[in-house]
């Protein structure tokens, strides 16, 4: 049986995953994945200063202060980039280590009074989350981080539903969004604010490194599986929750860090999708390229047959020499042509069938009118077997 602490940890991890997956999807689509890395590190000084003031890692004021540091990071990066002296990735690489190191020094200088260490910040302490309870009028209403993450998630979901259209258009086409009166700047900073607040809220539970993984990995995997923005959001959320729960149990069995295990599962999920996604996965892409190569060879071969009536040009053995192919390739192309009833072979002399002739004539038409793309559609009508 699951203890209530175990259940609470998984619930917190899942809520964090969802809260991260939503802004993460848009960051991935906006090619801004690196900025989440920058935010997650540079909020450290904000957290430390907030902690000095509030002495409570779960105080809303601390979250706001830290999120503000996140926004400052974005502004600084953009400012440095705008000068045109360095590129964006360089600007990111300059800003966040600077801010992060300020945070590290502040912790070190005050190590005696501050219950905050760098390890906890980087890796989080999800296992301890259930012990810090929120008491309202003396009643225990659950772990504090559950309430914090839940509130952030609620805000994120509300914003997503309210501004979905605006987010979509400004992500796809900034110029159009601007001309329609949806200020891309407002939406940009809105998204950055949500990302910052989410990062801070999730930070305490899962640490700086996992926050980045939770934002980017589920969205990157979802991107490879769908061509629909809403489905991409749904899949990101699903991958996030799956990794959070499976990661928790992996940590439980291995007696290892929860955040480390969740991150590993995320990496594994992405790897599997990257390899096996039906159309965009690496295996599907390689298979398609191979098929494409064979089909182009087939069309080349059919064109050759159509252009040459002489027996000598159509002898199976001479094909290797004439079109300059290896034997293996000639054989596989001949097989493909035969399987599709495009050719007949009589006494080692190859002839086009009626179907092969029709296919080739159409292909030639498309090639000379520069409509090669149409050949793809035509293949569906003619081929019984693909390359």
């Amino acid at each position, binding site marked *: 049986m699951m203890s209530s602490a175990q259940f609470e940890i998984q619930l917190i991890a899942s809520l964090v995953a969802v809260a991260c997956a939503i802004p993460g999807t848009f960051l991935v*689509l906006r090619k801004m994945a690196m900025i989440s890395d920058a935010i997650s590190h540079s909020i450290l000084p904000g957290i430390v200063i907030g902690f000095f003031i509030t002495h409570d890692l779960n105080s809303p004021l601390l979250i706001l202060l830290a999120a503000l540091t996140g926004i400052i990071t974005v502004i600084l990066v953009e400012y440095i980039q705008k000068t045109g002296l360095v590129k964006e990735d360089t600007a990111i690489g300059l800003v966040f280590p600077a801010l992060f190191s300020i945070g590290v020094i502040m912790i070190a200088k005050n190590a005696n009074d501050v219950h905050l260490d760098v390890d906890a910040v980087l890796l989080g302490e999800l296992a301890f989350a259930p012990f810090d309870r929120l008491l309202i009028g003396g009643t225990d209403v659950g772990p504090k981080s559950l309430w914090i993450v839940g509130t952030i998630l609620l805000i994120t979901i509300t914003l997503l539903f309210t501004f979905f259209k*605006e987010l979509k258009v400004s992500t*796809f086409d*900034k*110029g159009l969004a601007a001309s*329609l009166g949806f200020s891309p700047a407002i939406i940009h900073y809105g998204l950055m604010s949500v990302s910052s607040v989410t990062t801070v809220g999730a930070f305490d539970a899962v640490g700086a490194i996992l926050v980045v993984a939770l934002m980017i990995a589920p969205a990157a995997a979802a*991107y490879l599986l769908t061509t629909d923005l809403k489905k991409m959001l749904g899949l990101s959320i699903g991958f996030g929750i799956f990794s959070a729960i499976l990661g928790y149990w992996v940590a439980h069995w291995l007696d290892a860090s929860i955040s480390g295990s969740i991150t590993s599962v995320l990496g594994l999920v992405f790897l599997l999708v990257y390899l096996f996604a039906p159309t965009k996965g690496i295996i599907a892409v390689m298979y398609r390229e191979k098929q494409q190569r064979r089909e182009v060879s087939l069309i080349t071969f059919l064109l050759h047959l159509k252009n040459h009536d002489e027996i000598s040009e159509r002898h199976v053995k001479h094909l290797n020499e004439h079109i300059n192919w290896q034997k293996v390739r000639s054989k596989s192309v001949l097989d493909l042509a035969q399987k599709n009833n495009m050719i007949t072979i009589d006494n080692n002399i190859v002839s086009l069938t009626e179907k092969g002739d029709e296919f080739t004539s159409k292909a030639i038409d498309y090639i000379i009118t520069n409509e090669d793309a149409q050949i793809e559609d035509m293949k569906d009508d003619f081929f019984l077997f693909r390359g």
Partner: protein
Amino acid sequence: MKKQTKDNETPASAGVVAVKVDDLTVAYNYKPVLWDIDLEIPEGVLMAIVGPNGAGKSTLIKSILGILKPIAGSVAIYDKPYEKQRQLVAYVPQKGSVDWDFPTTALDVVMMGTYGSLGWIKRPGQKEKKAALEALEKVGMLPFKNRQISQLSGGQQQRIFLARALVQNASIYFMDEPFQGVDASTEIAIINILKALRKAGKTVIVVHHDLQTVPEYFDWVTFLNVKKIATGPVKDIFSDDNLTKTYGINYKVSIQE
């Protein structure tokens, strides 16, 4: 040739100024790319903006649409600032300015054209969908409505952009190189739609590269190279002299009479 002259006639509504640009100067990092542009575009013309690379053609359009902030000057759409006249204007950015791998369909991209009239927060419904389908029909892309946009050819992508502008049902259309990277049949389809728009009294402003087709496609032209060189009816000002001034070399385009 006679038909062509008829095509190029300016509709009777000419006389009203659709777009007025006054003393517009635009700079990137304090390096001016447009200097002191004055421009009046009459209502109902089909106008080409021509000039060499780096002449500021796209910049001019983007500044008129408020996407770029000028360092000096002002723009009026039917005598009012652009911000008050958004509903009257549709914009087709360069095809290369967006990520065509974005997870969305042709229909959805066209629907984005309706977002302007919806304003913030309100979501598109059946009415917007119907308008988008009609626009897709007009550009001959209805059979592709559910295609993911990365699976469209360059010409088809451009038609989708055009449909998105049509759905805005605007009075003034700004297009940034709509003929770039499209096949011949798409080019003809696009220019026919633009001519139909002009016939319906709309004003169409096109950043254009192919000087050869200017007299055939357009009735109005603006020569631009950081400064405005000339603007007016094609038949009056599309001359070797203006081309040479704009492109800086001895330019000769044979204009068929």
